[in-house]
């Protein structure tokens, strides 16, 4: 009889070692892991500027045509598999009007630093639920990113 009660006690001890989910207070509605930057604080995120190294992008009053055609070339290799120039969604949203909706800093940061921004930007998270494909990091350098921005402006009718 004594032995039996000892067994029961030991068994209970083992059981109590596992912490149940309800007690731990974890929030299971958020993804468990993301590829990068989960550690950085989402509350400091600036939805106008985005996150990345670009803070002040000077745009010319008129279009830089040469820069825009370079941008078109780079976009042809790295972007247009998934984006149309209209407002129609392909894999990702169409580019029409993007330079009117978004600040140039935000665009430059997003196309050079997509992963952390997808994790934090409320609009990008909403977009991800629609598209279901995270925009890939296409390893654009700063010059290429700026050229693409100029091409987007051209696409939006800047002369």
């Amino acid at each position, binding site marked *: 009889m004594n032995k039996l009660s000892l067994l029961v006690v030991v068994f209970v001890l083992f059981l109590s070692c596992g912490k149940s989910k309800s007690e731990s207070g974890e929030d299971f509605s958020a993804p468990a892991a993301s590829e990068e930057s989960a550690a950085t604080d989402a509350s400091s995120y600036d939805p106008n500027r985005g996150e990345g190294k670009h803070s002040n992008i000077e745009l010319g009053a008129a279009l830089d045509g040469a820069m825009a055609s370079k941008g078109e070339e780079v976009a042809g290799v790295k972007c247009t598999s*998934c984006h149309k120039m209209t407002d129609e969604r392909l894999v990702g949203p169409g580019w029409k009007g993007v330079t009117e909706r978004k600040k140039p800093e935000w665009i430059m940061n997003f196309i050079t630093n997509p992963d952390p921004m997808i994790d934090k930007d409320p609009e990008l998270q909403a977009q991800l639920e629609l598209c*279901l*494909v995270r925009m890939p990091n296409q390893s654009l350098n700063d010059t290429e990113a700026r050229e693409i921005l100029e091409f987007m402006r051209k696409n939006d009718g800047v002369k």
Partner: protein
Amino acid sequence: MKNRFLKATFAIVLIGAYFVSCKPKNTSDVAVGDAAQRVYVAPGKYDEFYNFVSGGFSGQMSIYGLPSGRMLKVIPIFSQDPESGWGYSEETKPMLNTSEGYIPWDDQHHLELSQTNGEVDGRWIFANANNTPRIARVDLKRFKTAEILELPNSAGNHSSPFITENTEYVVAGTRFGVPGDYEDGDVPINTYKKNFKAHISFIKVDKESGEMDLSFQLRLPGVNFDLSHAGKGKSHGWFFFTCYNSELANTLLEVNASQNDKDFIMAVNWKKAEEYIKAGKGKIEKARYAHNTWDDETHTGKSVIKEEVLVLDATALKDIVYLMPCPKSPHGCDVDPTGEYIVGSGKLAALIPVFSYTKMLAAIDKKDFEGDYEGIPVLKYNSVLHGEVQKPGLGPLHTEFDGKGNAYSTMFVSSEVVKWDIKTLKVLDRHPTYYSPGHLSIPGGDSKKPFGKYMVVYNKITKDRYLPTGPELTQSAQLFDISGDKMQLLLDYPTIGEPHYAQSAPADLIRNNGQLKIYDIKKNNHPRVSKGEKDTKVVREGNKVHVYMTMIRSHFAPDNIEGIKVGDEVYFHVTNLEQDWDVPHGFSIRRANAAELLIMPGETSTLYWKPTKVGIVPFYCTDFCSALHQEMSGYLRVSPAGSNVPISYSLGTNLPASSK
């Protein structure tokens, strides 16, 4: 009732005690208590060392982390690899080309990391093919086979690919003597002594690019060269090779090549050989061997057949080679970190002889010879001997060093690893291994600078070490901590193929060597690259059809293709447009007589396919790439031979026809 209970308990205890006492001692008894903690690498943390392990009869090289024993990658080298398309894609086929055409398999035995000043430098790792003699160079920035060089006049390329201390040369000694390719090989086998020769290849390595060039070969009597290591420090300029079958037997070697009490360690003065070459003493002989190189910008291998080799007759030219008698059928040939001591492991001997470089030089100087062997001077055993390790165990095979004056030797027959002091030759510690160890490896353990923390012993027999898997069992590696006086067994881990030699390097040395994460699409110079979907097309050239295709998360362009006919030869030139780390895509098409293509970001790869049946053939991405991976697919229409369906291709426009 109570009595019966007591009796039963007593019986159970007795039976238990019987089993415990009769059970052979095994690893679970001898592993140290906190071993689990010492090999545990927490999720998200990295191992301390990269461990490069030869794949034996798999023909490949596997890479593990130490101390966890977790496998990180298998790099295809000498065998086809359906997983990556190595040897199946049009671009990789030339890498497996030889003077006798495409060869899909080999037996990969030994590995050697490149060195600068005798220390591991993390640039390349060299690998040998034992069966069809070849040496490969794997580039550790890309973790990809960059080059494969075939060796003429060789058979059983076992004594390789060992390097000099600044990677000036990779050497390759032949295990089987055979008539040279430049001689008439149509001779009776029992004319071995007269007609069979052994050749040792010295392969020059370009300092910057790493590219290999067969600089010269030494022509020697037809002994079997088993293993080798370069001199280092004071003995830099010399190379040491174990030889067995000094009997020159050509049948039942098990008996007939085990007659002599002593075979040899051959010392080669390669600087002297270089002088003879400068003086024009070499002879250019006819040969045929393939030199295969990989180009990172065209993503394509190229195979060139070379037709000449420079041969030096080491018997006719004096002062290049000397023989040191070594008991008995020596296997391992290992040089300690100072370059002074040369350890020959006579696998049939009950001792380990250790030779002294200083004594060897003095003996050569004094012409302290006991005679000659097939025209090569043989030094007196006692004049060159530092001493013998007495009763180390049975069947000594290989030795590595910890940089603290100790040597560690594997004993195949008595199944143990033995630690001994190089200077005093005293055995300091011994530990059983499970079972029958071949090679062992200490990170940097054959260089000037060993990182003497861990030692891995590679066992040939696994028996009961793991859950049984039928007649064929895995091989087994065992990890020891050698930082203290006593060796401590920490971990068993299974390995692929049959590992022979292995090399290890500190993790930071490799991971900070400028490793590539992607191939830059701007630098892609593949002749059939598509840089963006605008470049994609399908082009018919007679019965050949070239499909220029791109892939990105998660679609192919084009994904609807028509106008292909039975009997056509179709080449899919597929470019991965991704420029992000860890996003390969795969390409496979139904009933293709090949493997998939696994294409890295920025790379172009080509699959050859010959349709034999009319119908609709789907193709799809094999590497899960996004939430819409299952949608990454396409259709190809195959029409009968002679059909007039025109070539057409599209993406997103060829929408389903209305059902009315």
